[in-house]
Structure formats: structure tokens, C-alpha cells
């Protein structure tokens, strides 16, 4: 009895994994199609990869997307880490809960709302300050903004693991604030900080809706570009691109796996979802 049920469960899992991966492999398979549609495989060819690498516009957009993710994750990690430090040291329970709920608002808001409200914010600021053109800066600010809460959520549990008497001991032994931060606090937090950076990075790479709202004419990210191309119809260049994206995601996931092996199993990509 037990044995046969075990097999059924495996069959079920295989089906689910097929459902999850067939579309992705389907995309990658047609990247090698000699023809130009996703309907019929007419022969093996690398032509679409050639097209992709010759398409400087797309390559620049790809670079922009990565620079944006790199920068926004970096700044969000800095701000978020100090935010988490502050929240940890808030003594009053009520203000702590309030701070945490405020922190989580952007985590649970649908991205259309984030995008629309940021668009209003930037135009309001624009009229107040003078001129704030929609473009790289507004997209960068938005990405930083929606990445901060996840960093806080990744760093805060590490603070709770920290032994407070260590800080007191360092203080008694004459360490300055900076030394306490550098030698005691940051080493304890570093797994959380790295995990937070990683999450912020992927949030930025994955975002479409917010960028779509707050970007102007001059600046595009990969997701927005794919959207506008996909609306015009199928182009196998996108398939070639997704093959590369998949390989990159694979590398990132393996990297994340090794990091999360260090930080413990509880910080997998659960909970917060945009």
C-alpha cells in the first residue's frame, strides 16, 4: 500500500514539474529554430543568437537592467540594513509594530498600485521641485523603494539572533561605536545582508509593472522592452534572449543556494511576493 502511493505522488510531482518547466524549455527550444515562428521547428540554427548579439539596442537595455538592479539593490541594502538596526533598538512594542507594518506596506501592495502612486508622487515632486523627468532616476528611486522592505525583513531576524551582551562587552572593553558596528554587529548580520541584497537584486530584475509606470521615453528595462515587442508579435530573438536569461537565473539560483545553505533554511523565497 505504502509503496504504490509513493509512486503516485512521484507521478504527480513529475507532472507539476513538467507544467513548470515545459513553457521555459519550449521558449529555449525555439531559440534554435531556423524559421521565424514558434509553431514549426524547421531546422537547427544559431541565427537568432546572432541577431541578438547584433542588436545593440537590446544589449544596451540588458546592461541597463543589470546596472539598475545592481545599484538599486546596493542602495536599498544600505538603507534597509540601518533601518533594521534602528527598528531593532526601538524599545516600545507599539512603535515597533507600527514601524514594521509601515515597512511591510510596499511588500504586500500590488505593483500596479505601487507604480501608479509613484507616478503621482514623481509628477507631484516634479511640479514642486521644478523638473523631474521620468527616466532612469525615477526608475532607480522606485526600485530602491520597493526593495528596502525585503532587506529589512532579511536583516531583522539576524539582529534577533545577535547576543546583546557581546555589544555590551565590546563597549566595556572600550570599543567605539564604529568598532562595535564593524566588528560585532555587521559580521553577525552579514548573512542576512547578503540574502537581502540578493532578494533586492532579483526584485529589481523581475519588476515590470512599476517600471512600466514610472519610466519615460528615454529609459527602458528588459521587461518593458519584451512587453512592447511581444505585443507586436513573436520574434525569436526574444527566445534566444530567454535562453541566456535562464542560464543566468540558473547561475544566480545556484549562488543563492550556497548562500542560503549558510544562512539556514528558513529564508527561502517565501512570504513576500510582489
Amino acid at each position, binding site marked *: 500500500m505504502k509503496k504504490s502511493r509513493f509512486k503516485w505522488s512521484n507521478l504527480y*510531482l513529475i507532472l507539476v514539474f513538467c507544467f513548470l518547466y515545459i513553457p521555459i524549455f519550449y521558449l529555449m527550444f525555439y531559440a534554435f529554430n531556423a524559421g521565424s515562428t514558434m*509553431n514549426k521547428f524547421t531546422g537547427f540554427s544559431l541565427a537568432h543568437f546572432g541577431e541578438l548579439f547584433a542588436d545593440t539596442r537590446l544589449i544596451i537595455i540588458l546592461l541597463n537592467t543589470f546596472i539598475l538592479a545592481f545599484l538599486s539593490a546596493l542602495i536599498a541594502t544600505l538603507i534597509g540594513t540601518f533601518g533594521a538596526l534602528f527598528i531593532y*533598538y526601538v524599545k516600545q512594542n507599539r512603535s515597533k509594530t507600527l514601524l514594521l507594518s509601515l515597512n511591510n506596506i510596499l511588500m*504586500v501592495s*500590488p505593483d500596479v498600485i505601487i507604480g501608479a502612486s509613484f507616478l503621482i508622487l514623481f509628477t507631484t515632486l516634479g511640479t514642486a521641485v521644478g523638473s523631474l523627468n521620468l527616466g532612469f532616476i525615477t526608475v532607480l528611486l522606485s526600485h530602491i523603494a520597493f526593495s528596502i522592505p525585503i532587506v529589512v525583513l532579511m536583516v531583522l531576524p539576524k539582529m534577533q539572533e545577535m547576543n546583546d551582551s557581546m555589544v555590551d562587552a565590546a563597549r566595556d572593553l572600550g570599543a567605539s561605536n564604529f568598532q562595535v558596528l564593524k566588528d560585532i554587529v555587521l559580521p553577525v548580520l552579514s548573512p542576512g545582508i547578503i540574502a537581502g541584497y540578493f532578494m533586492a537584486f532579483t526584485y529589481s530584475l523581475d519588476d515590470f509593472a512599476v517600471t512600466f509606470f514610472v519610466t519615460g521615453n528615454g529609459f527602458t528595462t528588459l521587461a518593458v522592452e519584451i512587453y512592447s515587442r511581444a505585443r507586436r508579435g513573436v520574434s525569436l530573438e526574444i527566445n534566444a534572449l530567454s535562453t541566456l536569461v535562464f542560464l543566468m*537565473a540558473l547561475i*544566480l539560483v545556484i549562488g543563492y543556494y550556497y548562500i542560503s545553505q549558510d544562512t539556514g533554511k528558513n529564508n527561502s523565497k517565501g512570504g513576500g511576493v510582489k
Partner: protein
Amino acid sequence: MKKYNTLFAIPYFIWLVLFVIAPVILIFGYSFLDSQGHFTLANYATYFASGKYLMMTFNSVWYAFLITLVTLIVSYPTAYFLTKLKHRDLWLLLIILPTWINMLLKAYAFIGIFGLHGSINHFLQFFGLAPHQFLFTDVGFMVVAMYIQLPFMIIPIFNGLEELDNSLIRASRDLGANAWQTFTKVIFPLSLEGVKSGVQAVFIPSLSFFMITRLIGGNRVITLGTAIEEHFLVTQNWGMGSTIGVVLIIAMFIVMALTSERKKGGKR
């Protein structure tokens, strides 16, 4: 330390004020403005008076409900079986991997799969069925939405099930419960937290998808998200867009209240 902290936390507070509190106030404020920028209640009047908007809201909630339900039905056994596997960390990683691929690319894949000459129809024809248009239908929209959301449902349920204390299951078996009783009386109630966060993670985005409705749903399915996008970026009627945004925020709070209700008296 404290003073030091406060100094470095200043950017965090600027962020709180500028990007959390101000946008919420602005979107509420704009919902009371007409296109000239004067105070008005007309947006809300239009929303409630014209059946169009109410119908759209209802449809959107209904689609989100169906998507969440089907995702849950598929995910629960998946998460449950995953916890029984040997290298579950690795398998879980394989569930996470698709979430790292931009969802636009995933939606794009379905344009090929669903097309009239696409693979699904080749498959149907193989069994002698007539080709059927999946692209630009609501079924197509729901399949794609489900596909994108599936990992976000599986992961929290998996985490919930993994936290479950095995000795409770053994105790229940020792006390004479059969496998089904153990499942319904012990395992499922204890994994409910995971289910709730999964429902939260799937339902709210399902209300607000707009690119899938455009790419896959043709303009047939209009969710709250599509309506907001249209009012903000196409017709430039920010007031009405904000009003629908406020409705979406309220819907979000209802969902969150429903799914986190029991946490207060809960486990910890």
C-alpha cells in the same frame, strides 16, 4: 549606539515618509480630484453608479478567486509530496527557479504555446480534435496566471508543512487515527498558516495583473489592474484610476484581514 543608529536611519525615515506614507495619501487624494484638479466625489459616484465598474470589480475578484483556488488545489499536494522527498532543498530550488525568470518571458512563451497554430493545437489535432483558440480567452488568461503564481503558493505551504512537528503525526497515528484522519485533523490545520500566506501571495497579484490580460487575455479579461493601467497611462484620467486603486487597496486589506485573522490567537 542609539544616537549613532538614528543618524544612519535617516535615509530609512525619508524612505518611509516619501515612498510609503506619501504615495498612500496621494492616491487617496487623487481619487477625489477631477481632471481639472478640483475636489469632487464624481469618481466614486461613477464607480458605484455605472454598472460597468462594479461588474469589472466583481469579475476581477471572481477570476482571482478561481486562480487562487486552482493554484491551491494543485499546490497543496505538491508541497506535501515535496516534504517527503530526500533532497527537498534541491527540489524546492527547482520550484523557485522559474520565479527568477522574468514573468514577461513566461507569458510570452504561452503566446507560442496557445496560438492557433501552436503546440496545444498540434496536440489536440493529434487526437483528432478541432483546433481551438486559447490565446485571447479567459481560460488562457487563468492558465498563465496560475502558471506564474504556482511557486508562490507552493513555497509557503511547503515551509508550513516542514515546520510541522513530526512527533504530532506519530502521536496521532499511535492514538489510532488513520492516515486520512491524521491529515484532516492534524496536518492540514497545522499547515493552515502556510496556506493563508500562499493565498495572500496569489490572490492580491491576481487582482492586479495587467500585462497578462493584455498579452494573453486579449482585452477580454479586465482586472482591476488593467483598469488602473488604462486610466493612468492610456486615457490619463488619474482621478478615476486612483479611485479604482483605492478599491484595490480596500480589497487587499479585506484579503489580508481574512487570511491573518487567526494569527493573533495562534500558535506562537
